[in-house]
């Protein structure tokens, strides 16, 4: 439970934080603080269980069918990270309370912040590598949101996008790598994988797996050549930088390297890739940091460089170096978080972070200045501070590795390179201290600096205190914890080590002294150049601007993609549809090309002459409809209706009364629907301009269409002449009455056997009706269609044979007689529709048919009586019908839960009622009633919404800007 609560508390806190009002700065901070603190306390409670190589493990079923479990696992190393995340998280919350200004929407900040903490904790305590990849991506996503927190700022947006692109791409590689790793190990369980080191390293997929995982780790930890995103992520609020970009997120990469160190390390590939990337990053980062003018930029490059140091240590393939790496992870988190906070205070107090403008701040803010000076001394590796101890270990390991590897010159190059990096770090630390705090008092600062609020300094004080404590008394303070953490990574390979301030006069000490002295000299040499105007960017590597390369690459990628799209794609519908119909034809040809396909040998049903004549008419209708659709829409629509009617008769002929009924009613409704739409289409008079282009296009289409028509005919003929294979139809037929309680098998299938499909279908119908309604509410007709059509206009229609329509009062105009008839027929049709619903379970009919008949009854009133007349008398709440329909169907389905059966199990009681006698009343009937209500609602909603357009007054649609072709 302990680990689960550790994981859930931050996410729950994030959810609560997002719901608090915008101005609840204190509540938010309290909430976030309590969350972080309780996480920290949970970690403290967990410590006794992880000391001496213990592991806490909790397993929950995730996707048992795939053998995946959700595993939470904490060993000493994960404990160290979890403690670091929660502890620094708490301090950052405290700091952020004072840092964030009242105008900033704090709920968003703390909500993201806590979600990030949760993701980070989830990452470190994942016991399953797929789960690990999931939390990994989550940290990338949330950090994107945090970097882009001030989204009104273009730099923040760009930085966030860059960070996300780089880290999430790396995350995908990592995911692939972890899948390969899981494949090699045969398990995704971290505990199993950690024992498989030899198998993994000996596998032929080792290099693939290694490179993929390293791409993930190196992008996340901003290692060369992916380091460029980190400085741009500095657009985030400073608490975010302090937390994410020094202490936690960028450490996820080195966490991963250390986590899989026992499995992946120990090979030459590991040494050269990890060590090489680490060394490059260490040097480049430190070098670039010297030339930064922005304090945060300096810290960002210094972070890159220190992460390079840790990566290099991990790449050395030596257990002791790994211990040093873990130690430096802790030390760096302590001094870098405090430095970021100090820079945040300076920014807050003075309004600038430019080293050239800042000067002499020591006099204004002596307290903060002292803290920052101590922390940057730790960063430079000055004795008596924590950075010194881990740097000594680093130097020692560099010498040892240089010897052990026995590569030519490596024993000189490696120590020299790390000493040089040490000098650089001294230089930029000096620049930070001397540039900001000493010298003459700056006069042109945007704000007059003062000491920040008391509690804003407390987190910095605590962290600096830790730096000092660890630096002076390492063996008494950090030693046991470091031992626990390193044991979690190294297990049986754990080396003996003793942290101490003084190791005697040896090489590492000499290198430290050299670094300090060299750093001071370099600073002294560069001082004037650095503070001058022409110092922009780092000399020598200016051309190596990762941001420009990255953005250039992205731009080229985008333009290549759009060129490819322009080349391969089309925005025009016709080519798309042509392709769409040709591809299936082609695929069908591929399939049947080598098969001997011929008609089956089932006896044919004798040809009936009436049926033949019927379809001659049907074919004429279909072809006529196609021919007339361009210039004679009404005629085409009528012809289409004719083809529909013949289809309907075919259903009658071949024993499908339900289909015939449905087809007939749908036909009526569809024709009315399209008739209503005709009015809004442009006039088109019958002069066809035939030219060579249209002629070729038409001949091409004619060929396609002929192939399709012939193909469909042959296909259906071949199938129809073969015997029916056994299908579930037989069981539907035999079980319809016995289990479904109805004799009309088609209806029983719809409302009972496949009731869930029907439920989905009526939902779709309801959604479509609402969409239609919504689209029509904002309907703007084209300019040419606003006037009443000439047939309705008395001035143009006089003299013709057409009766003049009186739109205002149809009921007393030329539609007088029909409207009276319709009024009288209305109850009769309604009764028929109810009759069809009620008998539907046993005879042809049912909810669909009944609903459509009912809507026809209503539509007839509209047509004959006119919209105004009907709506004065009948208030039809179509949406309510839709709602009621879904409700009925849902209740009929959910009712079976009450009796312990699955959703939509039907039940058919046969109660005996007075006067009526025995009445079969299956629960499916309630369902069908729901179908009925919904169909009525949906159909009338669609038709009436469309009909209303004719009585509405319209504004013309705004002229659309025609884009260049």
């Amino acid at each position, binding site marked *: 439970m302990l680990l689960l609560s550790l994981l859930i508390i931050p996410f729950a806190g994030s959810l609560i934080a997002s719901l608090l009002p915008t101005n609840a700065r204190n509540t938010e901070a309290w909430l976030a603080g309590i969350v972080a603190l309780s996480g920290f306390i949970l970690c403290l409670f967990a410590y006794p269980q992880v000391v001496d190589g213990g592991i806490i493990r909790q397993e929950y079923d995730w996707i048992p069918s795939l053998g995946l479990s959700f595993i939470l696992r904490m060993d000493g190393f994960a404990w160290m990270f979890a403690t670091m995340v929660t502890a620094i998280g708490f301090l950052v919350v405290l700091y952020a309370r004072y840092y964030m200004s009242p105008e900033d929407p704090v709920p968003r900040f703390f909500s993201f912040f806590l979600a990030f903490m949760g993701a980070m904790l989830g990452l470190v305590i994942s016991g399953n590598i797929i789960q690990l990849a999931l939390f990994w991506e989550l940290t990338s996503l949330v950090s994107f949101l945090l970097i882009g927190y001030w989204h009104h700022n273009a730099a923040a947006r760009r930085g966030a996008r860059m960070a996300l692109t780089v880290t999430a791409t790396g995350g995908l590689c990592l995911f692939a790598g972890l899948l390969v790793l899981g494949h090699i190990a045969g398990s995704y369980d971290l505990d199993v994988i950690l024992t498989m080191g030899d198998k993994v390293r000996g596998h032929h997929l080792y290099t693939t797996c290694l490179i993929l995982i390293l791409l993930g780790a190196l992008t996340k930890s901003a290692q060369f050549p992916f380091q460029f995103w980190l400085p741009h992520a500095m657009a985030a609020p400073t608490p975010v930088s302090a937390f994410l970009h020094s202490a936690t997120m960028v450490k996820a990469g080195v966490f991963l390297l250390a986590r899989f160190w026992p499995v992946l390390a120990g090979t030459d590939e590991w040494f050269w890739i990890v060590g090489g990337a680490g060394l490059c990053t260490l040097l480049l980062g430190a070098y670039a940091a010297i030339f930064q003018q922005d304090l945060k930029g300096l810290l960002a490059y210094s972070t890159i460089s220190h992460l390079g140091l840790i990566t290099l240590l991990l790449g050395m393939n030596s257990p002791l170096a790994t211990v040093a790496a873990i130690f430096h992870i802790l030390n760096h988190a302590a001094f870098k978080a405090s430095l970021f906070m100090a820079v945040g205070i300076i920014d807050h107090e003075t309004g600038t972070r430019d080293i050239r403008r800042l000067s002499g701040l020591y006099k204004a803010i002596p307290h903060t200045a002292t803290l920052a000076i101590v922390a940057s001394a730790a960063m430079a590796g000055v004795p008596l501070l924590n950075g010194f101890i881990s740097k000594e270990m680093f130097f020692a390991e560099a010498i040892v590795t240089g010897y052990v590897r026995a590569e030519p010159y490596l024993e000189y190059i490696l120590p020299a390179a790390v000493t040089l990096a040490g000098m650089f770090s001294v230089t930029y630390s000096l620049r930070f201290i001397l540039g900001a705090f000493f010298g003459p008092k700056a006069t042109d600062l945007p704000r007059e600096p003062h000491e920040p609020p008391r509690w804003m300094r407390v987190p910095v004080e605590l962290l600096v205190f830790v730096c000092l404590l660890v630096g002076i008394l390492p063996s008494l303070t950090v030693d046991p914890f470091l031992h626990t953490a390193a044991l979690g990574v190294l297990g049986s390979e754990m080396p003996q080590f003793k942290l101490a301030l003084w190791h005697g006069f040896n090489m590492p000490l000499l290198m430290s002294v050299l670094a300090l002295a060299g750093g001071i000299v370099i600073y002294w040499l560069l001082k004037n150049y650095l503070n001058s105007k022409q110092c922009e960017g780092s000399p020598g590597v200016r051309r190596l601007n990762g941001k420009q390369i990255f953005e250039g690459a992205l731009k080229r990628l985008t333009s290549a993609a759009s060129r490819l799209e322009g080349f391969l794609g089309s925005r025009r519908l016709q080519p798309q549809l042509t392709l769409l119909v040709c591809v299936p034809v082609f695929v069908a040809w591929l399939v049947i090309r080598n098969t001997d396909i011929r008609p089956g040998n089932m006896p044919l049903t004798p040809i009936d002459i009436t049926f033949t004549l019927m*379809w001659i008419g049907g074919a004429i209708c279909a072809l006529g409809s196609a021919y007339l659709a361009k210039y004679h829409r009404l005629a085409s629509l009528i012809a289409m209706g004719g083809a529909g009617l013949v289809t309907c008769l075919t259903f009658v002929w071949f024993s499908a009364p339900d*289909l015939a009924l449905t087809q007939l009613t749908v036909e009526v409704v569809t024709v009315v629907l399209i008739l209503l739409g005709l009015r809004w289409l442009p006039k088109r008079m019958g002069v066809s301009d035939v030219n060579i282009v249209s002629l070729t296009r038409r001949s091409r289409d004619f060929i396609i269409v002929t192939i399709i028509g012939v193909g469909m005919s042959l296909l259906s003929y071949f199938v129809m002449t073969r015997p029916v294979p056994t299908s579930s139809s037989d069981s539907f037929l035999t079980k319809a009455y016995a289990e479904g309680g109805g004799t*009309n098998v088609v209806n029983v299938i719809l409302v009972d056997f496949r009731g869930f499909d029907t439920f989905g279908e009526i939902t779709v119908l309801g959604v*479509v009706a609402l969409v239609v309604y919504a689209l029509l509410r904002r309907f703007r007709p084209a300019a040419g269609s606003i006037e009443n059509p000439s047939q309705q206009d008395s001035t143009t229609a006089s003299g013709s044979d057409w009766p003049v329509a009186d739109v205002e009062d149809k009921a007393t105009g030329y539609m007088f007689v029909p409207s009276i008839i319709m009024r009288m027929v209305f109850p009769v049709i309604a009764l028929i529709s109810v009759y069809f619903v009620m008998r539907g379970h046993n005879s042809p009919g049912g909810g669909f048919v009944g609903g459509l008949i009912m809507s026809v009854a209503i539509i007839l009133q509209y047509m004959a009586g006119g919209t105004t007349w009907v709506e004065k008398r009948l208030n039809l709440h179509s949406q309510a019908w839709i709602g009621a329909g879904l409700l009925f169907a849902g209740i009929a389905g959910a009712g079976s839960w009450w009796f312990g059966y699955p959703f939509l199990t039907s039940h058919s009681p046969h109660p005996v009622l007075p006067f009526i006698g025995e009445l079969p009343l299956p629960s499916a009937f309630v369902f069908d009633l729901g179908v009925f209500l919904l169909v009525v609602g949906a159909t009338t909603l669609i038709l009436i919404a469309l009909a209303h357009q004719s009585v509405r007054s319209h504004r013309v649609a705004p002229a659309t800007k025609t884009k260049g072709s």
Partner: protein
Amino acid sequence: MEIIVALAIGILTAAGVWLLLRPRTFQVIIGLSLISYGVNLFIFSMGRLSVNKVPVVEPGATIDPSLYADPMPQALVLTAIVIGFAMTALFLVVLLAARGLTNTDHVDGKESEA
């Protein structure tokens, strides 16, 4: 009879696809309806043609499935007809809205250059 139904399916589909490839929205909507007829008949014909074998069973009697028309394609087609109506309605409204916004009834929202 099979031949006639097969030809009917072919003609309906061909006429429908022809209209689908035309440039005017109204042609496309009519084409979709014709294709619906063709495809519905096609699915229906998968249960084979049977005259006077309505799938309405006698309650209580033992049932010989070969004496009835195949109910499953019928159930499928029934839902297909209703969904086809919904599709036509939605497409019609989109068509009208597009015509209102673009001032043309061309499927691309602008007259072709050709």
